[in-house]
């Protein structure tokens, strides 16, 4: 099914430019409104209705591949408009949140998880390397920057790159066993790594042990403290808006990285070793190096997310970075769609918000989350947005 959809993508009828604009605007505004209603409603009936609506949309996309191709083609032809409109929506979104700290919190956490899922996607999605330690890299990033800020008064902006470099070094270290071990053992090595990091954070004195690190200072930018509200155009946004914009910027950066790597020789090499490692070696691809590279890139982005998280909540403990966090990130990639940037982001938002919004089911919450996820996977077996073929020769 997916094959034929991709085969016909080049042949899809393309309507006039105004139809394209309408499609792009409709999809982006529609998604924004859907997300908005999901965020701000807490009535069970509304939430169930919204989930049903989403299910209906995905079912329609699955049954009518031409519909999906049409939308993709419109976004492809109107790339600049789509990006611009998306940026504007992200920029003005906070003004519509009615100052709800809870909605801001959900969005920030969703965006940080989107970055983590994009990070893991380089491995799991692009190269089919099962890494169960993204949560550990996230933690290494968070602890490195928190320790630097607390012990040496290093500014947030400087801890960002330092934490990324430290986590990347650990990432390469974790990638080392890929020289020797086979796939399944590599997965075990990453699980062990995640557990060891968690245990060390729990047991060292200088990491605060199980109590973690407290009182991480809020970042400052041009004299504006991120602990203070934003006042603009007569509006007053809660202090979380600072971290909202920061996280959004990081998501933007991650998308750019994901796109550039995907559409490069490196992305192709990762895809090759996903499809057939032996054949990849025979094309001159140094499989070990490219696997380690994927570990490095994963850790690099995860550390950025960790740093922002640490400064956002101002308090971190080992329990923020458990094995379960890694598994959650992995689920986001698989549900969203392996090797599809948009899919992975949607997966992260979906799986961050769903458990929160199903709180009404209290003890049975996780059961319902599982049921909803399975239902969506039945609707879209390849993930919400499956992997797509590369385009060549269409760049200016």
């Amino acid at each position, binding site marked *: 099914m997916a094959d034929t959809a991709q085969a016909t993508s080049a042949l899809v009828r393309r309507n006039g430019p105004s139809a394209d604009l309408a499609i792009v605007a409709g999809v982006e505004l529609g998604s924004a409104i859907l997300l908005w209603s999901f965020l701000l409603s807490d009535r069970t009936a509304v939430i169930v209705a919204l989930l049903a609506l989403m299910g209906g949309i995905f079912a329609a996309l699955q049954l009518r591949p031409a519909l999906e191709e049409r939308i993709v083609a419109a976004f492809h032809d109107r790339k600049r408009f789509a990006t611009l409109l998306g940026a504007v929506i992200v920029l003005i979104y906070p003004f519509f949140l009615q100052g709800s700290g809870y909605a801001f919190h959900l969005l920030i956490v969703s965006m940080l998880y989107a970055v983590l899922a994009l990070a893991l996607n380089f491995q799991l999605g692009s190269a089919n390397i099962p890494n169960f330690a993204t949560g550990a890299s996230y933690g290494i990033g968070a602890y490195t920057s928190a320790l630097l800020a607390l012990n040496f008064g290093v500014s947030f902006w400087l801890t960002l790159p330092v934490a990324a470099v430290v986590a990347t070094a650990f990432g390469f270290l974790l990638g080392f066993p890929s020289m020797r071990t086979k796939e399944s053992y590599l997965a075990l090595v990453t699980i062990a790594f995640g557990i060891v990091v968690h245990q060390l954070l729990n047991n060292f004195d200088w990491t605060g042990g199980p109590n973690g690190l407290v009182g991480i200072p809020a970042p400052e930018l041009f004299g504006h403290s991120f602990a203070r509200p934003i006042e603009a155009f007569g509006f007053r946004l809660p202090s979380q808006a600072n971290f909202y914009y920061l996280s959004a910027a990081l998501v933007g950066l991650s998308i750019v990285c994901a796109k550039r790597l995907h559409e*490069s020789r*490196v992305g192709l090499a990762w895809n090759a070793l996903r499809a057939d490692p032996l054949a*990849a070696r*025979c094309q*001159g691809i140094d499989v070990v190096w490219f696997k380690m590279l994927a570990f490095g890139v994963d850790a690099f982005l995860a550390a950025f997310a960790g740093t922002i998280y640490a400064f956002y909540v101002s308090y971190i403990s080992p329990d923020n970075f458990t094995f379960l966090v890694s598994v959650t990130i992995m689920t986001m990639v698989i549900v969203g769609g392996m090797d599809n940037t948009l899919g992975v982001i949607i997966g992260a938002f979906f799986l961050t918000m769903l458990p929160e919004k199903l709180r009404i089911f209290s003890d049975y919450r996780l059961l319902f989350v599982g049921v909803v996820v399975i239902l969506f996977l039945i609707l879209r077996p390849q993930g919400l947005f499956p992997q797509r*073929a590369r385009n060549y020769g269409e760049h200016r």
Partner: protein
Amino acid sequence: MTPLLEVRGLTIRFGGLVAVCEVDLALNPSEVLCIIGPNGAGKSTLFNMISGIYRPSAGTVHLDGRDITGWPAHRIAAAGIARTFQSSRLFNDLTLIDNVVIGMHSRTKSGVLDALLRPGKARAELEAAAEKAGELIRAISPDLHARRNTLAGALPQADRRRLEIARALASDARVIMLDEPSSGMDDRDTDALMADVRRVMAERPGLSFLIIEHDMRLVAALPDRVAVIDYGRKIAEGDFADVRLMPRVQEAYLGQKAAEHA
């Protein structure tokens, strides 16, 4: 003239089984050498040693006078030996173009930092590779070219073999090893395959082919020389017209009884 590819005393043991035993081969520039022999004789294993997938138990492989024995497969590919597989191994979930572009991996350079910090340059390199890949596919088959943006996994058997050859050609290798390229092809496809090999050899002086083959029509028409492998040993080498008449070769192929009757 020093041979382009020289294999000396190549041997590999799997536990007690000696799959390939002291095989010598020399391949000159611009030459086609066919390797024939019954199933299980050790032909594919020989390819696996030359391309670095298996490490030989004994013996050496030289490419252009350089000892490449025991090198990892990716370095051997970069050094100029490309290959196809008996059961074709394409990147099934990628497009035909992507498959062939990946074949150019060692001829292209962009790394992670180029991709992230100089995207224009990295992208231009990839676009150029994609264009070259398109031309390679078109030269092999206009039908394949029409399907270049579809997934390789959907191709029928004969097209899979063609695409694998295009991918091998993409690396600008000096030696191309084809493992049973005509299997799954009908006579017309096989003729096209032979025409392709001849065309490519005319276009690329110095390029040599090492071909494992069962189709005797191809073996009779295409190669300059033929080597026969049986039970892991090379039992004959020379012109196909001469080699086919040797009793040892007939025994290997037909069994001893049949050879006596013939």
